[in-house]
């Protein structure tokens, strides 16, 4: 009797458990991320507004870790010093101080790389999700071309940035559709080909994209926010790639299809814009030129000493003399490096940062005229004089030789495009890295960043 009752009670316990298992209160709902947009919601048949947010996010992502990128390139190109007492790797590794070398595991190598490939992934998600839209009324063929033209141009730009840093070591091509695998490491030449092909594919899309984009771009693309004007931006980048590869005749053609305008505003171009708005960022390179030496951006002394007198781009503009409260010169020193001039390229925390601008296009044309198969040194001199006059300098008066004009062209690139990521690249492609000043015995000028450790190569 007792046993039976006991068994009944055990059975009832089990029954109770089972009934709960089967009924609703035990079913747990599988809910998406409450804090962010779930990937699944955008990869399958997205709405036009979801596409627009992907495009805006892709543009916005171009600014991620630009600070590190520009410090890398600016320091190695001996344009400036980043002094941060808490981060000795800036003044050691980047300048090759003592026995230091560029480290494949350090933030300066891995973070910009990750940032470029994140933007590329976002652009790839954009491309793949647009492909899933079956309804041509929702997004027309021309609109698709506009989106693809944008996405591929951005991808090319990001690959180019990575290639600029990693140079001889090459870059990897991201697998466009598979999130779990990555592509082979490409040689430097193949990497440039990847960038050039993407830009050219994008150009074809843009030519078939109608008269207007279906999506908004930030004010940084003001004047370049329609398929035809965006194409001019695309061709500008293509011209840059051509001179980097030494294809000067091709560069002449590309620059002709860009927004180059010898009588126009030298600053006209495409920019990264910044704001204090929500989930936006401010210009990461804005810094008070007088800030304490332990956390400061200062100009490399040679930028001031090498400047032609009267150049309005130098002291009082991009280089500000550091003074203390008594009006005495307040030299910033760290790690046996010092400078009297604070870096002041970006004057406010919302100052835009150029991606490519008219001044660079003019100097690309000058370069193509100097080194093209049929050099036109007079034309080169004319373009250089536009830049010089705008800087308050008189016309070029040096010898009219290829060599002298190459020097002058590089010099104007140095001063006009100061701290915009060019000096190191320019000296490198003209095999002139040896001309960059070494500040301490034992310092080195690096040629390429290593491939990040986490790539497991």
């Amino acid at each position, binding site marked *: 009797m*007792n046993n039976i009752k*006991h068994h009944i*009670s055990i059975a*009832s*316990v089990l029954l*109770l*458990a089972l009934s709960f*298992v089967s009924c609703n*209160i*035990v079913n*747990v*709902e*599988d809910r998406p*991320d*409450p*804090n*962010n947009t*779930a*990937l699944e919601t*955008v990869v399958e048949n997205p709405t036009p507004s979801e596409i*627009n*947010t*992907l495009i*805006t*996010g*892709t*543009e*916005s*992502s171009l600014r991620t870790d630009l600070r590190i990128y520009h410090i890398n390139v600016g320091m190695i190109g001996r344009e400036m010093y980043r002094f941060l007492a808490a981060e000795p790797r800036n003044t050691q590794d980047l300048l090759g101080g003592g026995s230091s070398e560029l480290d494949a595991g350090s933030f300066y190598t891995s*973070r910009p790389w990750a940032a470029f*490939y*994140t933007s590329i*992934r*976002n652009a*790839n*998600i954009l491309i793949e999700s647009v492909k899933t839209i079956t309804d041509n009324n929702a997004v027309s063929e021309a609109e698709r071309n506009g989106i693809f033209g944008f996405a591929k141009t951005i991808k090319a730009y990001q690959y180019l940035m990575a290639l600029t840093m990693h140079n001889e070591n090459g*870059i*990897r091509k*991201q697998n466009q559709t598979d*999130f*779990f695998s*990555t592509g082979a490491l490409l040689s430097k030449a193949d990497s440039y080909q990847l960038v050039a092909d993407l830009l050219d594919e994008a150009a074809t899309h843009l030519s078939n994209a109608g008269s207007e984009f279906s999506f*908004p*771009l*930030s*004010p*940084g693309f003001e004047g370049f926010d329609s398929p035809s004007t965006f194409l001019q931006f695309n061709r500008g980048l293509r011209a840059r790639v051509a001179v980097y590869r030494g294809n000067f005749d091709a560069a002449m053609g590309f620059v002709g299809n860009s927004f180059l305008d010898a009588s126009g505003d030298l600053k006209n171009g495409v920019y990264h*814009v910044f*704001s*204090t*708005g*929500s*989930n*936006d960022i401010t210009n990461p390179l804005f810094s*008070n030129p007088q800030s*304490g030496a332990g956390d400061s951006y200062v100009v490399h002394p040679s930028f001031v000493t090498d400047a032609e007198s009267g150049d309005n781009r130098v002291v009082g503009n991009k280089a500000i003399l550091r003074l203390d409260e008594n009006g005495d010169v307040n030299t910033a020193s760290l790690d046996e490096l010092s400078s009297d001039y604070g870096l002041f390229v970006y004057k406010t925390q919302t100052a835009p940062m150029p991606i490519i601008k008219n001044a660079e296009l003019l100097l690309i044309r000058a370069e193509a005229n100097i080194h093209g198969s049929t050099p036109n040194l007079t034309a080169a001199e004319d373009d250089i004089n536009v830049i010089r006059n705008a800087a308050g300098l008189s016309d070029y008066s040096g010898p009219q030789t290829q060599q002298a004009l190459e020097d002058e062209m590089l010099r104007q690139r140095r001063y006009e495009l100061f701290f915009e990521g060019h000096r190191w690249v320019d000296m490198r492609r003209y095999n002139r890295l040896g001309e960059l000043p070494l500040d301490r015995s034992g310092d080195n000028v690096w040629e390429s960043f290593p491939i*990040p450790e*986490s*790539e*497991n190569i």
Partner: protein
Amino acid sequence: MIKKNTKYLLGVVFLLLSQSAVAQFTVEGTVIDAQSGQALVGVNIYDPGSEQGTTTNTEGFFSLEIPAQSATLRITYVGYNQKNVEVSADNNEITIELQKSVANLDEVVVTGLASSVQRENLANAVSSVDSEQLTGTTSSQTLSSSLYGKVAGANITSNTGAPGGGMSVKLRGVTTINGSSEPLYIIDGIYLNNDAIANGSNAVTQAAAGGSSSNQDNPVNRVADLNPDEIQSIEVLKGASAAAIYGQRASGGVVIITTKRGSGGKAQFSASQSIGLTTIQKKLGQRQFTEATAESAFGPKGKALFNEAKSSNRFLDYEELMYGQEGVLSKTQISSSFGNESTSFYVSGMLQNDEGIIKTTGYEKQSIRANVDHQFTEKFNVSVSSNYIHSESRRGLTGNDNTGTTFGVSMVATPNFIDLRPENGVYPAHPFNTANQLQTRDLFSNSENVNRVLTSVKAEYDIFQKDGNYLALQFQGGVDFFSQNNKLIFPSDLQFERISAQPGTLVETNTNNLNTNTSLMLIHTFSLSENATLVSQGGYTSFNNDQNTISTVGRGILGTQTNVDQTVSVSNNQTRIYQRDRGFFIQEEFNYNDTYITTVGLRGDKSDRNGNVNEIFYYPKASFAWNISNMDFWEGNGPIDNLKLRTAYGQTGNLSTFGAKFTSLGPSNIGGSGGILITNTRGTDDIQPERQKELEAGFDISAWGGTANLSVTVYQKNISELLLQRELEPSTGFSFESFNGGGLRNRGIEASLDLTPVRNNNLNWNSTFTFSKNVSEVTDLSVPAFDVGGFGTSLGVYRVEEGKSATQIVGLDPVKDSNGNFSGDITTKKLGDGEPNFQLSWYNQLNILKNVDFSFMLHWKKGGDVINLTELLSDLNGTTADYDDTDLTFPDFVNEAGGITDDTKNGVKRASLLGVTTRQFVQDGSYLRMREIGLYYNVPTQMIEGISSALRGIRFGVSATNLFTISPYRSYDPEVSNFGNQPIAQGIEVTPYPSTKQYYFHFNIDF
């Protein structure tokens, strides 16, 4: 036959069974405490012959009808030794004296969702702490700090000396690498939220700017809200073998808290007042400069300022100026217990107002509790517990930063010859730092306000009871809701705000959290025979959590406004977390004559934290206890009264952190348009819980009439399916993903020895030693070794590495060549371990001449290294107190590598060795500490009666916490954690809020 393993309360009900009468008489009597002579309430009186029993009333009186000529009554009472008393018709008016038990073998220990076991029959080493041990000696701010040294196998450390808590509790070693290692707290059936929510000071300190997402905001974990004075007892289930029935949330162990409840009868009131002072535990001192050292450390400006100070002999003690406040502590507690036969109430209220050792810091708490128990019918009773708490903590701004703004970082940059004191309300700018800490302290504010409601209900219904069969249904539900507001105001006048592009920063963070849990259980007790009992139970449980945090940072304050919209720019952040867990359990317990006690059980759990939300994960358990002393052959003539062998096995889980399974795109806006950008962490679709398997075994011996008790337990925990994060090739567009893999093992031993060396009318001395030791090893790691805390190898990091201790600290060190000289190479190697070699605490209670109580607890932690970066920052600034001494020495090859000699100044030595070795920062964190000490006087009953008949007792005394600490550690306190509660990277010090000690005067009155 009474079933000792039946739930205590239910057992009492069960005793009141029907009766029959042939020859009978009534026995009447009173039960009193043998020491104090006080009446004992609720003592069980049981006659095994007739299976009848009763309990004493509030006067200690009982009356029981015996259906025979004589009987042997069994008298049992929690916390007292059992006694058998012969009664007969002639001897039917008796007074029974009970001796307090040291071993507490009769104590009922809560071991499961619906079960409790007498300690005598327990198969696990469950630690219990009663209110006397918890708060009897001294007052403490938070629950965790009152548990120090009282639980074998628990490693309790304070993260900071800041008022309001911030404590880490780890049971039996490291149980996870990336999950939470904190135990599950259950108070009166409520699954308590113990989150540590960041206050948002990172917006100014930028402590996490180096890409570290770790929280360095010095947060309070929310278990700190509980009022320790309202707690009746705490049971600590330390590992999977004891906690398996709690399934996937119990890997860190379970702390079961029972609050005080009312008893029927005359109303009783208690009031107590503590007044105290808090001071800094240890000052580090300051460097004494000369003109030359001032110049070399601070340049020409330093030299000028030194000479200025010297000419007016104005050298300031900044530790005194900053940390020198003698903070006033005050705590008022009143409680009352009243009721009648069917309803009882416990009502209490508490007001606490504590100042800190830094001006403007402090902690306030108010708590109201009402616990109601009502017996509707003989078969149906309901218990309700409710608690409202408000706490406010003002913790200042301490710890790591990257902007020179915290008090601590400002302090290390402050030599004694500068003057930062305000003149006419104007604070001078700190000449060597971005912030003047006196100004920051006086003008900024950082307050945390928490309003919290805890409510639970427990209903029990006896479905039937007959013929040794007993079936009950139990429902439990709990709600924990809190709203936390953090407000930080950095006025635009602060030195570092003045130079900002947008001077003045406001940070406002609001969090709402709701935890709810329910369980429905059936418990069946069944007597197979006179000697064998079977208890079956099973049921369903659910747990829900919803948390919503909205944080707003406003920069550029308009005037002196404090609303975040009164700023130039505003940025917002919202984080929502949810969790839905559902589970069931079944358990079978077999007790043969209190000699063999076997339990098996199974828990099944699912959760939306898992990749597959409806997959059930199973956690089995089994245990066996053998009371050898209850065997027939046991004569009981020797000194040993009780001997028990026990072993237990169980499994638990540990859920992944929220979001591990999501692949998402986060907001990334530009030009006023909204954008989304893929995040760098790829979600893991099949993430599942970590699994812990624990086996423990031990024995308990009680000897010489309960005056000596020894309990020894060994255990091994294996944790598999660890939640790990692996790095992905960033060219995929992702940098990380979580996965399950690897393994971790903990082995340890725990022992406790209770002694009563003296027990007589004039002196009663109880002494308890608690010992524990744990050794961990990462047995399997499917990813390369990785760091889980710290600031890089050169400054010392906790590195998880296969084959090594989970808490090893690695750093740089020079390599010796074959001749013992420096070889020219620097290597990375293990330099320390965060885990102590062992911990030993010694708790003593002395009752002298009946009216004087003296108690103290000494706590010895041997080993356990700490990374001292306060010293590094002081050295780099040239302000360390021992900077100019030369007593610190290193081996010759280290000296050679660093280019120093034994005669080099300490400060220079340590700084020169930066990048060469890390051994100067990894320091021994051993200590011997007087945790608690208290001396009380109980006014004798006769004197009280002379004052008023309503008075029951008056007690007053003095106490202190952390009275002294002996430690080789070279900073404030080896108990510290810059990163808050961490499973591994606990002991890292960066300019914390210094640790404190407290002195109290107490006054209690009962009537």
